[in-house]
């Protein structure tokens, strides 16, 4: 299968903020390897602890998410000493990129679906911690959540609120023109799973967290 790609593997396909993502062969199938790389700006003692801990934590969360039926790539191999793991290959694009090019109806449909996925993740006792539309892959409309590096096991409304706050901020900063439309669609999907009452609770919580930021004007 990987031979048909006609490219030499492993191939660096993305260099993120904290990790390098490689496309590689995994026993005849295409797979993704995520490798947390050392940061020159952190002292070694701090750096190696952070990388190792986050790798173990992330794979643990993804495993739990998968068990709860949340769409995340399947983990195939884990190497804590190298701060890396191998997972199932999911074809993109990211939701961030897809939202730029699809018509309004699809845009809303995707975000509603994302709302359902995130709500189910929250129901399963997990929070993502870095929920942006760059961390959602859309494989022909089937959404996969990736990058659980800052995620956690939590049932706190506060932590769930932070997920929504980060997502809202990411939507606002990259899709200014239809930000309200897509976040509204997201909330609709979220509400479908948790119900109107709990959706309102979390929306209020998001506002409260926002207000807590420094220098927010209370009008």
């Amino acid at each position, binding site marked *: 299968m990987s031979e048909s790609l006609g490219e030499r593997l492993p191939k660096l396909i993305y260099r993120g903020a904290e990790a390098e993502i490689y496309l590689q062969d995994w026993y005849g199938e295409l797979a993704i390897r995520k490798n947390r790389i050392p940061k020159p*700006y952190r002292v070694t003692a701090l750096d190696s602890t952070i990388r190792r801990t986050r790798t173990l934590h992330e794979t643990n969360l993804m495993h739990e998410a998968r068990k709860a039926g949340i769409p995340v790539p399947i983990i195939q191999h884990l190497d804590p000493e190298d701060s890396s793991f191998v997972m199932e290959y999911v074809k993109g694009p990211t939701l961030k990129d897809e939202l730029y090019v699809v018509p309004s109806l699809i845009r809303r449909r995707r975000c509603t679906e994302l709302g359902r996925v995130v709500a189910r993740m929250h129901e399963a006792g997990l929070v993502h911690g870095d*929920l942006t539309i760059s961390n959602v892959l859309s494989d022909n409309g089937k959404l996969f959540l990736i990058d659980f590096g800052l995620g956690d096991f939590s049932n706190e409304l506060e932590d769930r609120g932070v997920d929504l706050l980060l997502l809202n901020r990411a939507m606002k900063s990259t899709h200014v023109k239809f930000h309200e439309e897509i976040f509204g669609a997201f909330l609709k999907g979220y509400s479908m799973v948790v119900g109107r009452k709990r959706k309102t609770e979390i929306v209020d919580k998001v506002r409260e967290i926002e207000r*807590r930021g420094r220098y927010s004007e209370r009008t």
Partner: protein
Amino acid sequence: MTEEGKILTDVRDVYASKPGTGIHPREAADHHSEIAAKVVSGALLEAGVTGGQLDGVAVALGPGLGPCLRVGATVARAIASCFEKPLIPVNHAIGHIEIGTLTTGAVDPLVVLVSGGHTAILAFSGGKWRIFGETEDITLGNLYDMFAREINLPSPAGPQIEKLATKSSNFVPLPYVVKGNDVSYSGLLTASLAKLRSGASLADVCYSMQEVSCSMLTEAVERSLAYTRKKEVLLTGGVAANKALQKKLAEMVVLHEAVPRVVPHPYTGDCGAQIAWAGMLALRAGETAEIADTRVRPRWRLEDVRIPWRTTA
């Protein structure tokens, strides 16, 4: 400040709090009113201009301490009405950003604003500066100041902590909290003070606290940089003078083929030049205000400020 961005004068007289105490708002305001006349006349003298030659009077209406802002606003209103010049309200944080782009030549940077009141990561989009990340509780400047206050160092404490930090390379583990593009420093403050009380050396704690706090912010900036794919990172605000932070950011931005821009020393901290230059840009865009609309705004969010003079993105 001239229309071309030449700084004619930047006279300053900064309030200093007593060691072991923080800034006392009333004492700071008293200081401001005592030195106001001297600073204004000194500035006009040094610039070689008369009040009548001014195009307008820029005034920082916020964010900041209310009593201090009111002194500045009162003085500005007096000058403006005396010489019949327009008043230009300026958001202090925008001042930090604009003096940064002026002095470094940055065009479309990811901005890292670190001052007493801000720890924020910003990019320009849709006519305003948008926040990509910020502190969820206290700022980096607060962290240093509050730590220093507990151990009786004078404020601003950054330089002292930086100096103490250079005396150690013994890293003691402290909480490292990055959430998305945000950082949280309150736990780090508590843990640093606890380490000190349990017998760790001051130099070790200063070194480790500086390492952790600056690494956290650098990581948050790195995340924003990977997301926005900007090619310049502008470090501005009082804490921008911290060499450890400058070094970490420089080491990080090269990984993303971006260029670090650091505001040169005299303009990192709060100064008249930053307000004057942001005011000049606003004046050219027609953003003036009547005296009645120049009430101080101690909690003025910078993302609420319209920036008509900037067109990128």
